[in-house]
């Protein structure tokens, strides 16, 4: 009964993690509570978009629309009906998640249907358009608050729902992972790999694609419902196009099709700008220019190593380290030299202001060095880790 043992263990671990995260954040890092909630929502969004984009290969870039539909559906229902029903806050939130999921899933069917006829870029345009249309519709519907936004305060106080947010993320991960591991998942990957061949094998490509859209958008909708309740206020501006793009970036950066990759990238891409936002450091313009040049040197060094060192892993790691050290030295020397240019040295900039610049640079560098995404098609697993470690030992021994 190894199977059930592992199952049970992972359930216990997941609940333990979610509970622990909630308790630790509340007691030790109350300032981070809201960020931890948002990070959890982004994990759900990235993993659910990964099901559509990465696993099934349907290029959708309107994921924020499903997020918005879930948020508004749940927010509206909650605001008008919470007072006149007997459920407590927690159960009510679960019901609201279902409401958000159902509405978003219906929208998912609507968007999924054109995907039966459209491929690649064309589908991307349709989903992008759908997202913008939904946002503008909401902006002009007065009962939903229009451009002013919608208050969602059924309980008065904003509820402490970090655990629920991460439970949803865990559920989303579990659903996607089990879909991939069982034989139900093969047709999804088959559609991504080769639609004609999978149709010739008897895979109902249309229902596979619509299923991916429905599951993916339902999870986004449930995440939206939680967002509405934890933020207590939503407006069409919360769900602009850049939200869709950041979710897409998380999926691509993590490695299209890799669930672990999506999780890591979601947390990292959410955390980096937030962390930079808190930095209160003023740096002179000369150092910034020097830093950019040094990063350029480092990246070209990395690419050179990638192309020229194939034989041994330890040599390659050494070469990478040499690039980092060289870039650091270059940064110091350059900033010293550039400080002689008064226009640069006198211009002082806040790191927090530069955060989107730094963020984009991280993205560009990662895409240059690893275009297939950090995890590519792979998944993190303990088997994989032990295999890699054993292989490393074999090389050094």
């Amino acid at each position, binding site marked *: 009964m190894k199977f059930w043992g592992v199952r049970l263990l992972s359930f216990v671990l997941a609940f333990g993690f979610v509970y622990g995260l909630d308790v630790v954040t509340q007691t030790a890092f109350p300032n981070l509570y809201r960020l931890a909630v948002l990070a959890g929502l982004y994990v759900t969004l990235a993993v659910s978009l990964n099901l559509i984009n990465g696993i099934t290969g349907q290029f959708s870039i309107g994921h924020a629309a499903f997020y918005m539909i879930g948020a508004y559906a749940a927010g509206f229902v909650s605001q008008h009906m919470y007072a006149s029903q007997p459920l407590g806050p927690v159960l009510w939130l679960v019901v609201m998640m279902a409401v958000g999921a159902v509405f978003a899933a219906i929208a998912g069917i609507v968007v999924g249907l054109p995907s039966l006829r459209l491929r690649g870029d064309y589908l991307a345009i349709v989903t992008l358009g759908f997202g913008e249309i939904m946002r503008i519709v909401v902006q002009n519907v007065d009962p939903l608050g229009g451009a002013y936004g919608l208050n969602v305060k059924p309980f008065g106080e904003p509820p402490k729902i970090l655990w629920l947010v991460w439970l949803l993320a865990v559920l989303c991960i579990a659903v996607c992972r089990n879909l991939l591991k069982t034989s139900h998942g*093969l047709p999804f990957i088959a559609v991504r790999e080769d639609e004609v061949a999978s149709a010739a094998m008897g895979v109902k490509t249309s229902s596979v694609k619509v299923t991916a859209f429905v599951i993916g958008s339902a999870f986004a909708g449930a995440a939206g419902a939680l967002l509405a309740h934890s933020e207590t206020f939503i407006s069409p501006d919360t769900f602009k196009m850049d939200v869709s793009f950041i979710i897409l970036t998380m999926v691509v950066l993590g490695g299209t099709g890799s669930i672990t990759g999506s999780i890591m990238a979601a947390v990292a891409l959410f955390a980096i700008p937030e962390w930079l936002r808190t930095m209160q450091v003023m740096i002179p313009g000369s150092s910034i220019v020097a830093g950019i040049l040094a990063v350029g040197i480092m990246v070209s060094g990395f690419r050179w190593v990638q192309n020229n060192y194939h034989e041994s892993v330890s040599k390659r790691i050494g070469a990478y380290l040499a690039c980092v050290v060289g870039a650091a030295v270059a940064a110091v020397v350059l900033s010293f030299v550039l400080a002689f240019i008064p226009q640069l040295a006198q211009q002082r900039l806040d790191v927090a202001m530069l955060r989107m610049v730094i963020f984009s640079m991280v993205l560009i560098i990662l895409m240059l060095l690893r275009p297939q995404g950090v995890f590519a098609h792979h998944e993190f697993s303990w088997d994989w880790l032990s295999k890699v470690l054993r292989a490393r030992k074999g090389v050094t021994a």
Partner: protein
Amino acid sequence: MLEIDNLDVYYGAIQALNGVTLNVQEGEVVSIIGSNGAGKSTLLRTVSGLNRPREGAIRFKGSEIQGTAPDKIVRMGISQSPEGRRIFTNMTVQENLQLGAFTRTDNEIQSDMEKVMDKFPRIRERLKQSAGTLSGGEQQMLAICRALMSRPKLLLLDEPSMGLAPNLVTEIFNIIGELHKDGVTILLVEQNANRALEIADRAYVLETGHIVLEGNGRDLLTNPKVKEAYLGG
């Protein structure tokens, strides 16, 4: 077993098949030869349900199947090894075979997989390997194995010799011969007219969407017109 009656297929305004009529009897190997763009692959795609005919009928075991969804056609017992093999290169060989049996729900899939691998020992050796790492010949074998996994009553083979070295072409055609001996009904589309006619019980020659000749494989091999156009004089 399969009857095609006056089939017209268009891609937009371009007519790819024009009044094609042919039939395949149970247990036969029927070859269709023709040059590039004659409509051979279109014909197989239409039988599989991947293209819709504008006119005409396709009957499989008495029931009309033109315009039926591809997955239903697979369930009825027609399975295709598509042109250019189209195996799932990022999946393992085993997963490819599992997808071949996608429409089946019985519990003999595993034993069928063993049977298929007994016939193709090289596939067994590479079972856990990613299918993209297979050689061209092995990929073609995998494509045929995958098509066999659905237990087809009629097997459609689209250019199985495409892009293969001569000794591998011989191997593939030997395999087709063995399948024929096992009683599998095969509709084969080929540019390699010589091989296709040698192996066929009957054959058709397709030219710009029309059937221009039909007959026994042996007779067509010696037909002066076929010799001149397809067998190099």
